[in-house]
């Protein structure tokens, strides 16, 4: 026994070398996939920019892109958390219709102020989420069943609430989805200054957050990514945000309000998933639920809260959707669950749970959105659009799997 231990001192140097290399490799691998889907988005944008003779990135089209796809981004945020935890939510489309109906009724029939109506919508969404979360977390009914039931229940309730289309909603409410931030600061040439300032602030915030994270790693004497990659990341993201701000600033209205809403949600939830204990527990549950429970993670509570959360976000999506239509329809939100789920899987989430990121889901949502818009500009028949989107989903996931397999064997 003791002779075996004496062998050890010879090992550490070799070990350290291996560990440094392993660290570098694993760091690269983690980022490569992320850069991969982002690269795919850029490619698709360029492709359609060429195919549409530059119409795709016309400022007003870009604004429309965000306004039309805000609901997918909002739902995809909640959905990726559900999927990472190893569940699924099929009910979000029906919940959007139901909550949208109640919000519209509360303004038109009960004469409530639009702000109160928005709060009611969010609260009702969270309540619906709590209902479904209760069955999933505390009774143990599989989420697939609970939310399949929810899909029927809330579509039915939506039909009850919205027996006929509820139109004539207040203008301030409709502005949530169709309005822009006022051009308070005037224009530079054709460019709205408010939009540029917001873009600049976003770049600065991103850079500061990155620097602070790096400084904190350094403080604990931990390995950080190479300076070149670090700078490239900040410059890359900075250029992308800057480019987008310039385009948006030349649109008819400037910065769309929904984009601000989505941006705040993306940052907040990326933080929640990436930096908090709660986020870590979501990944742990998705990776190995019994192990997480044995380690002291309150798995039931996490499951419950994930569903409350996607209910809340469905409420937000309902508000955005109802505002964009300017009316509540019983058929609203049809197929939204599929859009959100597709966005998550295109964005790299694993069907088995445990893997997936907010940023990936957002990029997935944007890929679908750009496809929609590009194909529409090219006046491709909607039936074909659907077929093409299906193929993209299939290829994206297959590509990811093949990549992973190759990385695993090399």
């Amino acid at each position, binding site marked *: *026994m*003791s002779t*075996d*231990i004496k*062998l*050890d001192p010879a*090992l*550490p140097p070799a*070990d350290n070398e*291996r*560990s440094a290399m*392993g*660290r570098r490799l*694993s*760091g690269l691998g983690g980022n490569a996939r992320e850069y991969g889907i982002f690269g795919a988005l850029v490619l698709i944008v360029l492709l359609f920019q060429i195919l549409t003779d530059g119409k795709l990135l016309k400022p007003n089209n870009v604004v429309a892109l965000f306004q039309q796809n805000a609901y997918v981004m909002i739902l995809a945020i909640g959905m990726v958390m559900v999927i990472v935890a190893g569940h699924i939510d099929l009910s979000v489309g029906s919940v959007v219709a139901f909550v949208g109906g109640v919000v519209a009724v509360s303004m038109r029939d009960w004469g409530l102020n639009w702000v109160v109506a928005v709060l009611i919508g969010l609260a009702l969404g969270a309540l619906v989420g709590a209902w479904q979360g209760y069955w999933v977390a505390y009774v143990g009914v599989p989420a697939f069943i609970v939310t399949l039931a929810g899909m029927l229940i809330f579509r039915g309730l939506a039909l009850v609430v919205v027996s006929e289309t509820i139109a004539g909603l207040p203008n301030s409410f409709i502005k949530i989805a169709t309005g822009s931030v006022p051009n308070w600061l005037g224009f530079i040439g054709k460019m709205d200054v408010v939009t540029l300032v917001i873009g600049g602030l976003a770049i600065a915030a991103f850079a500061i957050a990155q620097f602070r994270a790096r400084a*904190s*790693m350094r*403080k*604990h*004497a*931990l*390995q950080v990514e190479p300076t070149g990659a670090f700078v490239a990341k900040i410059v890359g993201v900075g250029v992308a945000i800057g480019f987008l701000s310039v385009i948006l600033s030349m649109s008819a209205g400037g910065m769309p309000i929904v984009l601000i809403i989505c941006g705040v949600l993306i940052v907040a939830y990326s933080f929640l998933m990436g*930096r*908090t*204990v709660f986020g*870590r527990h979501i*990944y*742990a549950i*998705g*990776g*190995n639920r*019994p*192990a*997480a*429970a*044995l*380690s*002291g*993670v*309150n798995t039931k509570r996490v499951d419950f809260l994930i569903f409350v959360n996607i209910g809340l976000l469905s409420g937000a999506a309902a508000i955005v959707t109802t505002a964009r239509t300017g009316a509540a329809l019983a058929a609203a939100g049809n197929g939204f669950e599929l859009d959100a789920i597709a966005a998550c899987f295109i964005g790299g989430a694993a069907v088995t749970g*445990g*893997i997936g990121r907010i940023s990936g889901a957002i990029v997935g949502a944007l890929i679908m959105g750009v496809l929609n818009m590009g194909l529409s500009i090219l006046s491709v028949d909607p039936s074909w659009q659907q077929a093409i989107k299906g193929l993209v989903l299939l290829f994206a996931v297959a590509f990811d799997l093949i990549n992973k397999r190759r990385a695993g064997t090399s």
Partner: protein
Amino acid sequence: MIAVGVGDSVHATPTTRGAQDVTTPVPPPPLLSMRGISKNFGAVEALVGVDLDVHAHEVVALVGDNGAGKSTLAKMVAGAITPDTGLIEIDGEPTVIPTPGAAHALGVATVFQDLALCDNLDVTSNLFLGREARVGPLRDDGYMEATARRVLDSLTSRIPSVRSQLSTLSAGQRQTVAIARTLIGDPRLVVLDEPTAALSVAATAEVLTHIERLREMGLGVILISHNMMDVLAVADRIVVLRHGRNNGVFDAATTSHEQILAAITGATSRRQSRMHALR
């Protein structure tokens, strides 16, 4: 010293308890004391009236055949299973351990037989799972990673990096991570359910040294193992389970391989248990 014969213990638990009184003449309350623990899984009697004591500064080995109920008992201490009947005392205080979180709060750290690790997380995340360090509302990732590195360095582990995703580690490396988890926080009682099953000779020796260090630090250790060499090397007492029942407590210093094997397989007690059944 005292070795309770296999045959004696079949009759009743009092004999066993009497023997322990001799081993510890001055009785400070044991760190952990389990009395009359029973657990059924449907028709399966996993544990029937089992007693177990662990003192501070003591390594207690829990041995028995496959399915004897060792892991079930370990999971009770870890808060993953609650007994149907029986009493658990910690420092002489009757205690219930309803959840793994409660066990952790009581100072129990456990390496489960199936390791209970998350493949999709990195080494640091696994070490701190369920007990993450925080700064305000956020995780203190820097502190956790630095601590993880220190802990793994202290084990001269062959883990490539604390940032390695667990799915990329070998079975032995994963087991090392599971063992390293017991070094996080300040446990008083460490439960190791077959901690060396996948380890090399050198790594096993290291774990045994580690167990001895835990005892020197004044912790109580429950070691479950099928390797009698390891058990005899580090344990102070050896508790044998057979078909979910106590089947003897042995002093490791004075007991041979064969005696323990006999208690595990029930070789010498077969006639008496049959008589017992006839009564």
